[in-house]
């Protein structure tokens, strides 16, 4: 019983991200509306960002900003005291890329709406086939 509990506590965060990611994937595959697909893509990206940030944590460590940083910096710095900064750096840029893709995707959706007067995928396909 204790083993199962410790297993769940050690892994449940990954399960939450996988569920979130699958919600995004489901929206991208199934939803008919282009804006809903874009929102699904954003949920997918958010799940990946959360996953990376959770990789960076360490038990008993603090944020990666060094104490007494204003001084001469002669204090010894131990890697076990600070969480892993690399996932944060990667995700900082990934968040920005997700904003950029969201902007461009919405622009294309607007362009599609201007051309076909609808954002529903099946209606766009029937209009394309009619030509």
């Amino acid at each position, binding site marked *: 019983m204790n083993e199962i509990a410790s297993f769940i*506590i*050690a*892994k*449940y*965060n*990954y*399960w939450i991200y*996988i*569920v979130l*990611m*699958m919600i995004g*994937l*489901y929206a991208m*595959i*199934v939803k008919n509306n282009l804006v809903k697909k874009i929102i699904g893509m954003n949920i997918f990206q958010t799940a990946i960002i959360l996953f990376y940030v*959770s*990789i*960076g*944590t*360490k*038990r*008993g*460590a603090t*944020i*990666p*900003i*060094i*104490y007494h*940083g*204003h001084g001469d*910096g002669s204090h010894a*710095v*131990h*890697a*076990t005291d*600070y*969480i*892993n*900064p*690399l*996932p*944060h*750096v990667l995700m*900082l*840029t990934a*968040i*920005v*890329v997700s*904003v*950029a*893709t969201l*902007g*461009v995707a*919405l*622009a*294309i959706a*607007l*362009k599609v709406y*201007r051309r076909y007067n609808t954002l529903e995928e099946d209606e766009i396909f029937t209009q394309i086939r009619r030509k």
Partner: protein
Amino acid sequence: MKKLGLIIVLICGSLMLYGTIDFPDWADPSSPASTHLSPYFIETAMHDTAVPNIVTAVLADYRGYDTMFETTVIFAAGLACFFLLRRFQRRAPDVNLFRHMPTGITLRIKKGGKVPVDSSEFERIDSIWVPYDLIIKTTCRLLIPFILLFALYVIAHGHHSPGGGFQGGVILGAGIILYAISHNLRAAKARIKERFDAYMCSAGVFIYVGTGVLCLLMGANFLDYSALAPLLGTDPIMARSHGILIVEIGVGIAVMAVMICLYYNLSSAGRQDEGL
């Protein structure tokens, strides 16, 4: 389609859930991600660059190329949005709505009608009628300067606290967008013109790349800020710290301008005459 999608999602999800058995435990200090490269950065970043915030040091110094092209990606996204949506031919609207400010009466002027020129009493409003809201306008006018000030703090204090160019730039852009939402798009465009915004977009990227080229001209590698020490009048380690600040300012300007560009074009579908 719905059933097929559900089956695909369930199979993918269960495979991934099965894969988590081999993952390191949450917050395990000896997980593979925290044992190889990150101890080096944590232990030497302060010594190398005099920047206590390791994330900032890694972002703008060790991984400077990555961040440079990230800024370029943002710039390209702003350009793509502009070229996809922007329409320049000005189509005169069928009806112009004007609000008489002292009385609150809305005037409806058809095409060809005489437009009131006394702009101190009349205010043009969007073709979808919006009520005049003193509370929203006053609150936003009081808040926006502090939002912008906080954004500058986030950029400038990125060395010692969580923050930096990307975050500060987004807050700067959000302040301007809040102004555009609380008043209207024309009021925001009177403050930040589209041409000025485009110049800022490219100026941000130019500051970043220009810093790198300056390092080349000083005889070091591209984006090796320690070569800027003679120009800044400091030792090479502090020069790396200052170089990071210069680069972050460039990133902040570029991100702010692109956010504003995205909002202007998306909210008005490229016409930029009346928005949300």
